[in-house]
């Protein structure tokens, strides 16, 4: 167990750096403020810049469990909050059939049988039959947790509106059980790839940090820390190449993870420069679209700087 550390932007930067992550100062400040003000943090930026990674490291920082809710189109309350375990209810009802008959045998008429059933049926809608989904897990957790609501821009607007209650009051209402409130509010991190505008109401409830591609120096540091033993000259060249690719109008710009993968691939094939043959062998690690690969291989000189 890691010892608790005082939360300051500096301590965050330091601990993240120890895990090989170069934390932008805006993000460190925003995380610190999120902790101090008890607010959710919304991280927005292009894909592949490490937004999810920040949430994971944030959980490690607090020695907390990370509960992740991956958003997608059509995600609804049942998948995000809770479900009744229908199968388990049916199974129990079957197994307890004899017991049920015994109980009902005491009833002289139909009306009193229904009254008995009404009292007893609540047993099937207790916590034993509740399947908590990520949001409820985070609220019911006894230990500190970090709730990551990933790619919230991919969910529907209805779901976004539903999130508001959870985010502002840290509680959910379940008709059969009443309102469940978090004993200690979970730390919440939301990420968005900025594919659509999130509602103002959601933005207002969160603190905000924009995470962009790292600067040249930062990215060189990232690659050096992730790929130990890589030649400095090669690192410099490959990072410049990747940064030039991001400025070009590609279908999918390479993220940081892809650059690291590419650096690993280059060391595996033993390349010491970005020659045409080395590019042809390894570019698949950097670019994940055939047209992009063909375009870059056609004139690699444009991106070598």
């Amino acid at each position, binding site marked *: 167990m890691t010892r608790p550390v005082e939360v300051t932007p500096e301590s965050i930067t330091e601990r993240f750096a120890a895990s090989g992550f170069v934390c932008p100062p805006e993000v460190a400040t925003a995380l610190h403020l999120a902790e101090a003000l008890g607010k959710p943090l919304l991280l*927005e930026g292009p894909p592949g810049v490490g937004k999810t990674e920040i949430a994971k490291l944030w959980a490690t920082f607090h020695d907390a469990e990370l509960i992740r809710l991956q958003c997608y189109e059509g995600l609804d309350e049942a998948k995000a909050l809770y479900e009744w375990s229908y199968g388990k209810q049916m199974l129990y009802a079957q197994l307890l059939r004899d017991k049920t008959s015994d109980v009902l045998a005491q009833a002289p008429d139909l009306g009193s049988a229904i009254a008995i059933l009404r009292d007893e049926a609540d047993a099937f809608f207790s916590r034993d039959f509740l399947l908590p989904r990520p949001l409820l897990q985070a609220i019911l957790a006894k230990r500190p947790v970090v709730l990551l609501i990933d790619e919230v821009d991919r969910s529907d607007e209805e779901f976004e509106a539903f999130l508001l209650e959870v985010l502002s009051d840290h509680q959910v209402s379940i008709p059969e059980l009443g309102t469940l409130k978090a004993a200690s509010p979970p730390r919440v991190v939301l990420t968005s790839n900025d594919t659509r505008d999130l509602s103002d109401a959601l*933005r207002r409830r969160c603190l905000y940090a924009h995470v962009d591609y790292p600067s040249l120096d930062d990215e060189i540091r990232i690659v050096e820390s992730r790929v130990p033993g890589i030649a400095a000259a090669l690192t410099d060249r490959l990072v410049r190449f990747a940064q030039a690719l991001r400025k070009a109008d590609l279908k999918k710009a390479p993220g940081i993870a892809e650059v690291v993968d590419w650096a690993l691939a280059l060391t595996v094939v033993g390349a010491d420069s970005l020659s045409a043959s080395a590019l042809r062998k390894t570019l698949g690690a950097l670019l994940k679209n055939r047209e992009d690969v063909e375009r870059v291989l056609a004139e690699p000189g444009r991106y070598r700087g």
Partner: protein
Amino acid sequence: MIPALARFVDALRAEGVAVSSPEAVDAARALGLLGLERRETVRRALAATLAKDRTARAAFDRLFDRFFAPVRLPADGKGKGQPAGAKAGEKRKRRPEPPETSRHRSPSERESEKKARPGLRLRERRPKIVRAPKRRDPAPEPSRRELTRRMTTEEERTIAREVPRLVEALRLRPGRRRRQARAGRPWLRKALRRATATQGVPFVVPMQAPRRRAVRVVLLVDVSFSVARAAGLFLLLAGAFLEFGRRARVVCFVDRPVDATAAIARWMRGGVRAARPGGRARPGDGIVRGAVSFADVLTGIEGLNLDAPSDYGRTLHALTGARRGVRGRDVLLVVLGDGRANRLDPLPWAFEDLARGCGGVLWLVPEPAARWGTGDSALPLYLPSVDVLVEATDLAGLATGVAELRRRL
């Protein structure tokens, strides 16, 4: 810090960034946590709490740089805590940023600036700025109501009813001061007053400096929707001291300049009768003289397209090229407008050309100073050519502007 933060939040809202009160409270708490010692920390704390998307962030960064300028200490360490560029003992004034002009000038302008001809009066880079007194009253009296706000025709009428009172107040204020000189005309009034000390015997007769040539005034008035109300009230006030058509011209503009001297002069005399088209209320409906509203006068001016977006660049360019242009040492150019060029090219060099051609430039801005230079405002680009800038957000502010105008007649 809280008032500064509140002003900053206000300015952000004026830029279109919707900042809610809880967010402003968060910002204050964040500053309390992180301290104010380091500028970048303050920027990050405010950005995380106030600017919540990319467009908001762009506006935030622009405003932050303007609001929280880095403090530069003098080399000898004296005068610690003075704002950037202030000399010891100088009163602190907040001024708009000096504009980055070079990009917006024509090549010939930059050329001519390099070799400033000897004898040519170089204007002071920074104008005198006349600010409005601080407004605290939540329900201000009519003459202090902000004119660019939305208001009904009836409210407008209430404000317009204050015009005669302000005109009277202006008449009581001294106009241009006369100067004593060695030679000139005898100064009778002064001689009589001095002579009372010597029992009516005028031992010395003071002389009065010869009168300057009478000043010609050109009013360049933006009459686009947002400032039309201020324009109408300003013309009413100024009309009490100027005789339109003789030594004063009125040029109205929205997207191009139109000489409105005759129309405004007729309105002042109460001579026009414009047919009043029905429909929704327009700004200027409540500013009435001789049963004709200013809105009607504007509709009656030929060539004026009131629905166009205001275009400062085109207007100024047309004026520099006009045959009967605004030119002469005796010309006082008075501009009324918010300088909002709707992202069209503001052509500051055209204004500089105009300003250089005349004896003085007075600019009345019907917008609070906190919003100058924000959004699509090109005002800072025009500032170097302006002599006096007046914050005229309300009727009283307009009267201050007219007082400044009178001092130069």
